[in-house]
């Protein structure tokens, strides 16, 4: 089961700085495990961020994004208290959705 994301959404002026930490192996398909077997590709392909229900950010990733990914999104016209929802989907169709509320910095 996927671990929860850690989302920090802080308001700077009228721009929300949304920073997200994700627990995910982001396997390239080229790593061998301790037993010497190739670990299959396992990576997040898609990240979707909504602000007050509207899609603001729609990202496609490859396996080149680092393990335990970190990414950020900035949204103009945001207010403290607005809800932000982040969903990722990986190549095994695992997914995880978490949300956060924008706070004044």
């Amino acid at each position, binding site marked *: 089961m996927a671990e929860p994301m850690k989302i920090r959404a802080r308001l700077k002026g009228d721009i929300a700085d949304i920073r997200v930490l994700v627990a995910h192996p982001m396997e390239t398909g080229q790593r061998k495990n301790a037993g010497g077997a190739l670990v299959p590709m396992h990576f997040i392909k898609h990240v979707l961020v909504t602000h007050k229900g509207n899609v603001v*950010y*729609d990202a496609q990733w490859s396996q080149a994004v680092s393990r335990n990914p970190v990414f950020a999104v900035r*949204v103009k016209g945001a207010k403290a208290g607005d809800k932000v929802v982040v969903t990722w989907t990986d190549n095994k169709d695992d997914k995880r959705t978490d949300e956060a509320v924008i706070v004044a910095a």
Partner: protein
Amino acid sequence: MNPLRRSLLQFAALAAAGWLKTSQAVAAAWNAAGFEAKATAEVLKSLGASGAAESSDIAITAPDIAENGAVVPIEVVSRIPNTQAISIIAEKNPFPLAATMQFANGAEPYAYVRIKMGQTAHVRAIVQAGGKFFTATREVKITIGGCG
């Protein structure tokens, strides 16, 4: 309306209507041709960005020297009006295209993500704005060497 924009809006509409499971919708949009391309030129082609113009309105922030190629932070800010999407390419990776970010509904033309880089290379940003493509690069040196 450009194709990326259209797929984004379609996806949002479908998801809102509950017609599609998120995973199905997003899987359809994933740029397989671009992500599986092995050379930068092919990536550009997949994005429709082969003729992208060099632009000084794209700011790439990244370490000149990265201590760990497994975690290279890349920040791209576009000052080009109507920026719709930013792609990040690590030119010497086996699969150069690392990520494409599309913006809508007030999202700033700002991308930040950490990527893996196999070796010292140019990081290229592709910006799509108003149906046109623009590009900028920055070199990132990756330190490679045995441990002390």
